[in-house]
């Protein structure tokens, strides 16, 4: 199995994540799409770690997961706060700042 197989998969997942951000209106789902993008990057890291037989790639992935957890905490807290205020997590209703 060539490594490019995994890279292609990771590229497709990355773009699917981007599409999720572009297309979905629910802030929670947008956030999930961001996680998908992170995962795509993780997959690429692990693939390259395999290719070079270097542990660095895997360790980086571990750190990314920790950071992702931190971001999730903050992001979800933000969404809860906004939901309290607006009663919705529709990202498109958040457009009072513009111009």
């Amino acid at each position: 199995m060539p490594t490019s197989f995994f890279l292609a998969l990771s590229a497709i997942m990355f773009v699917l994540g981007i599409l999720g951000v572009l297309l979905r209106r629910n802030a929670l789902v947008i956030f999930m799409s961001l996680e998908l993008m992170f995962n795509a990057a993780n997959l690429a890291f692990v693939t390259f770690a395999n290719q070079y037989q270097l542990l660095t790639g895997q360790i980086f992935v571990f750190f990314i997961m920790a950071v992702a957890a931190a971001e999730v905490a903050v992001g979800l807290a933000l969404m809860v706060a906004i939901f309290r205020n607006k009663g919705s997590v529709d990202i498109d209703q958040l457009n009072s700042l513009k111009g």
Partner: protein
Amino acid sequence: MTLIGIIFYGFLAIVAIVSAVAMLLNRSAIYSALFLVLNFATIAVLYLALGAPFIAFTQVTVYAGAIMILFLFVIALLGAEKLSGHEPIKGQRTMAIVLGLIFVVELVLFLIFRNQGIQPMLALTQDFASPQKIGIAMFTQYLLPFEVVAFILLSATIGAIVLTRVEKPARLGAARGKK
């Protein structure tokens, strides 16, 4: 690479992509979350194949376990809101799909067709990425990043508390009451 291997990886890839697409398309946030869990689990299996057992298990526990459960909690808390499929920004959908397609074509062109350095996947030994090795590396060579991650988590915790703690100033509450 045997035929079985190709079928195996192909199957996993299809599951991963289909679950990602399903997450993307599903109108209900709960189903989206569940499809994402499926995607993460599939990726975890690929990690195993790539010789990263530790990462695979972390993926399952941290990502599929902790993070996605957090998502589900929040969805439950906010009442699984269903938004209409209406797209308020005109042209957004078309543009997004067109750009997405171009982007994926570009990436694939770069990663596969232009990439001269393609090598077969290596079968790594069991102890290449054993938890022990990773632990040692993390506390020696990667000590500083490890500590930094601790501070990131701490500041995220503080941030989450600050953002959700209900502590409205009296005046503001009164003003909102008037409305």
